[in-house]
């Protein structure tokens, strides 16, 4: 087995204090190995985004710890970490090209190389012809493509994704799944992907961490055995996919039932 890149140890997070204290995440432990694609799935409010925020240093844990490459995460994420937000975080005052170039500019990459790498990313995301467009003129799916490419162009070894396709329609989502899998297959990042969409998790991930309702605990860790490379469309009709979906849905379904009672 590949080395452990992210180690989550006994992680807890509470918000507020005193009688208004709410436990969001309770004693969660799991590992993410090098070049592994791990999805975290659970009902809304289960603390899955909170876990991702803590891995990305956006939130400090209340208990336990997170090690990235053996080092405890501090108040600032390391340079090897990229993050794609659920919310649209494309800079509205920059064009598509200027947005994708951001990370390279921050790192002081030479203009000629920036141009080459941005051009490559634009082509990869199918954004040709929109290089000089401002985000206000783009669809939600295109904006999220820009956000994805902006994170990928700096080649982060670890990519944290917080429901990046949550606001998109099914068709756009499937296209982006295919693109993401293609890029991931070529670049082999370590990915932690948070979603509430089970089929998305099965399509993309090697392993799925299934969370309980609040306070979020790990219900089970599920190994997805579907072979790679995966065809995101054909996959959905395969017997293995349906079987895996059923198994996890069963586990998740209990969580939804508990809430209803």
């Amino acid at each position, binding site marked *: 087995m590949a080395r452990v890149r992210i180690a989550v140890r006994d992680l807890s997070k509470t918000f507020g204090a005193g009688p208004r204290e709410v436990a969001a995440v309770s004693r969660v432990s799991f590992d993410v190995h090098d070049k592994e694609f791990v999805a975290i799935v659970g009902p809304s409010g289960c603390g899955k985004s909170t876990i991702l925020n803590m891995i990305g240093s956006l939130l400090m844990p209340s208990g336990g710890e997170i090690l990235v490459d053996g080092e405890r995460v501090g108040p600032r994420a390391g340079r090897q970490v990229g993050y794609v937000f659920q919310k649209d975080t494309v800079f509205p*005052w920059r064009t598509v090209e200027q947005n994708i170039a951001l990370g390279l500019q921050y790192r002081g990459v030479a203009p000629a190389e920036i141009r080459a790498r941005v051009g490559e990313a634009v082509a990869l995301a199918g954004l040709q012809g929109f290089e000089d467009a*401002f985000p206000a003129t783009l669809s939600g799916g295109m904006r999220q493509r820009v956000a994805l490419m902006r994170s990928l162009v700096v080649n982060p070894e670890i990519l944290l994704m917080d429901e990046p396709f949550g606001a998109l329609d099914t068709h756009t989502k499937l296209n982006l799944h295919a693109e993401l899998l293609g890029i991931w297959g070529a670049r082999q990042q370590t990915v932690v992907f948070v979603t509430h969409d089970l089929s998305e998790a099965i399509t993309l991930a090697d392993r799925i961490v299934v969370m309980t309702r609040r306070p979020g605990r790990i219900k089970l860790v599920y190994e997805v055995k579907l072979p790679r490379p995966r065809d995101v469309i054909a996959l959905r009709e395969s017997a293995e996919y349906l079987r895996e979906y059923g198994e996890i849905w069963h586990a998740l379904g209990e969580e939804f039932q508990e809430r209803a009672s």
Partner: protein
Amino acid sequence: MNGGRLGVWAWRIGILVAFLGAWEYLTGIKAISKTPGLYWIDPFFISRPSVIAQRFAYLTSDKVRLTIWQMALSTIQSTLWGFLVGITTGFLAGLVLGRYERPARILDPFIVAFNSLPRIALVPLITMIFGFGLLAKIVLAWSIVFFIVFFNTFQGARSVDADLIHSARFLGASERQIMTSVVVPSALAWTFASLTPSISFALIGVVVGEFIGGESGGGLGYLIIQSLGTLNAADMMVALFVLGVIGIVMALGIKQVEARLLRWRPEYQKR
């Protein structure tokens, strides 16, 4: 489409012509025939378009010590300087205090107190300190523009989307790069929204300053107050007309700059 626009312009010109015509006509009807000086609508107070045009021609000629163009230039200069210094200082102060909470908290009551002071009340004091030249008018315009821009930028710098800052940080931005690439552009959008009111208020400040400013920094405000002294409504009307044109041109100029700098905004996207 084009015909619709043409129609709109035809209406506008029609209204203007009707207005000027009625003004000219009504101020010419005597109330009691042959008795001089008694009118239904007395041109002594509101003058007449024909007289105003004559006075305008006279004021542009070299028969006067200070032509209307010189006065207009003086007013424009004071306004633009006050505006430029006002937006730069207001922007910088708003940006700094918007990002640093502690000094903002400390200074808050002073800022509110100074801003609640009616600026007009400062005119004599500012004139006393800065003299009768352009400087006093610039300071006056600045004191108004500064606060408008300051409050807007302050709000803008405070309401920068935290997730934009986070994503910049994940892309490797230093604190300085976050300032220049995230905070400044976000705040600028708010600053620009304050430019149109700023230029109008700068003009107000300058004209009021000119009311008591004397001849050395004599602008259109000086002409207005001189005309009050000589009970000359026509000259006042000339000054008001020129001020109106200046105001419109400046506001249109700002709109152009704004549309250029904020071209990324949905409301400026033409496609």
